[in-house]
């Protein structure tokens, strides 16, 4: 999956037939980070939006937050986490995911929060996740992220990783031994 599964509001207003302003008008805030509307999830500042087909937009938003809390990288934008879990937005997967997120919200309520997304600090969300970490749902999401998140080519440069080098003749003439601080 690539970052192209995204609707970039800034770049492609025509794609979903909505301008940024219209989008925000039809949306309601879900947390500090997300807004939802009919069939879509967007960043609160509408920097991006994605259609949600099989899952409830609230469920999908919670899943994205959960993904970030499992593998938090502050320099990695939400779109990569959205891409990483987008594959669960199918008819086949949706029932299990809805069920899993219900479980997650119930775990949050046990700790006196309204729901998972309403928890302000990552540390407190992690405490909720810890109560679920041996469940098949948590393990499925975590396991899927290992490739779903880190195998996105567009994400590699954010970690400095350069990927294949054969097409450029390898690093023999391009810095394989350029370390200068030893």
């Amino acid at each position: 999956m690539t970052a192209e599964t995204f609707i970039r509001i800034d770049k492609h207003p025509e794609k979903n037939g909505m301008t940024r302003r219209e989008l925000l008008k039809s949306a309601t805030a879900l947390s500090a980070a997300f807004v939802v509307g009919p069939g879509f999830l967007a960043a609160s500042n509408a920097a991006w939006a994605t259609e949600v087909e099989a899952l409830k937009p609230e469920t999908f938003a919670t899943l994205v937050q959960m993904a970030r809390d499992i593998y938090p990288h502050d320099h990695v934008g939400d779109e990569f986490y959205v891409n990483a879990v987008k594959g669960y937005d199918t008819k086949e997967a949706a029932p299990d995911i809805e069920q899993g997120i219900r479980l997650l919200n119930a775990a949050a309520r046990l700790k006196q929060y309204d729901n998972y997304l309403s928890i302000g600090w990552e540390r407190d969300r992690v405490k909720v996740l810890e109560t679920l970490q041996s469940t098949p749902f948590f393990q499925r999401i975590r396991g899927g992220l290992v490739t779903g998140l880190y195998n996105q080519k567009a994400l590699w440069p954010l970690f400095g990783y350069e990927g294949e080098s054969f097409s450029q003749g390898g690093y023999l003439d391009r810095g394989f031994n350029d370390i200068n601080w030893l």
Partner: protein
Amino acid sequence: MAAPFELNDNNVVVIIGTGAGGGVLANELAQQGVSVVALEAGGRYLPQDYVNDEWESFGQLAWTDPRTTSGDWRVAKDFAGLPAWIVKAVGGSTTHWAGASLRFQAHEWKSATHYGEVEGANLLDWPIDAAEMAPWYEKAEEKLRVTRTGGREGLPGCNNYLVFEKGAKALGYEEVSTGRMAINSEPNDDRLACRQTGFCFQGCKWGAKWSSAYTDIPRGEATGNLEVRDRAQAARILHGDDGKVTGVEYFDQDGNLQMQQARVVCVAGNSYESPRLLLNSASSMFPDGLANSSGQVGRNYMRHMTASVYGIFDKPVKMWRGTTMAGIIQDEARHDPSRGFVGGYEMETLALGLPFMAAFLNPGAWGREFTTALDSYENMAGMWIVGEDMPQETNRITLSDSVKDQFGLPVVDVHFSDHPNDIAMRNHAYQQGSAIYDAVGATRTLPTPPYPSTHNLGTNRMSENPGDGVVNQWGRAHDILNLYVSDGSQFTSGAAENPTLTIVALAMRQADHIVGELASKNL
């Protein structure tokens, strides 16, 4: 030119598997005029087909048919369905391998003698020794064009190596170099020189690294004496009333069962599939499986004591630039029980790309301790540790009683638990590995658990006495005159060194022996 042999040609030597052992044996026999049919379960991929992308390449080349696991090793929990990382393709795991090519140390051929009684270990001396193997090692080094042997230059050191070398020297280590590698430092033997592209594990697109896929196999085929049937998976070895093997049943590329008659059968499917095949070939005459009168088929499974250490620094290293395994420290490879364990270990640089690092750094881990380490990926240096593990009778390959493969044959269950000696050695290595990076100013070190097994050894071991093992000093089954084992499963002990040079040397020696036996009509 592939030489087509008839299925009912009972004059051919049938080799099962075309990796380090089978691929070399096939070519060596073909060069000496012996007719060979090699059956290979995987497909054919050449440098132009290799993909420099970790997961995509894994999907292309790795053996991903089901396997099951048990025992207390962490791999059984982290990678329950993937106990080993080995290849299913023409050329076998020599497409994936990093190229480190080391000889055993003399004492390692005689581990029982040198290490004495080690509780719980099933140590045994090899029926061969360093003097016997020296000329074969020389031939193997020449075949693979191993650097720092035969007058060949070493490879230049990449960033990952330079960090490692500096730390090693700071600690007073002396045997530190870019190692003996089956990777060309200069064009040689129709293979290009290494371009430091950094995807040695994914198949070298320059052909700088030796692999039987593009050397021994096509050269053997060019003689007209070797036919390689790819996507042909051996299912059962058949035998006659006299107890000699007569042929091999296999599933061809269309899934149809075929039977190739044979004068001699050589098993070289790596240390899971070779014993599996012998066990799956059980008959009324051999109810416990072929060549198993000792009960040792599948036992004494070794996977080397392994671990990794990554160091994080405050400045970039870019370890992925350059050869994957780019250097070695050998000072700890000696046998010195004062360290609290028998045998020794090698430290070798290792670099993983970001996708594999995420999967292997600390499988199952999540949260900031894990992700902040990955955040520093660019500033990481890494090493792999490989040491001698103890053979244990209970570490073994058995047939699964519940899981079957696509052909309906029972898959292997891999049972492994660390021996206390393995654990003591790993802890020592974690300490030394971390100290190396600390000496260069690491801000954090990461003692990383073993990956799925890349070195799989010992499950059809060589022994002097037929009661102690499966094959004799030639890799010939004690029980069956015309059945051979030609891969890493014949290892009596694992030694500290990466195994492939030894597998190749043994295959060359075995070829010479088989040619002699054929000539003198003993086969």
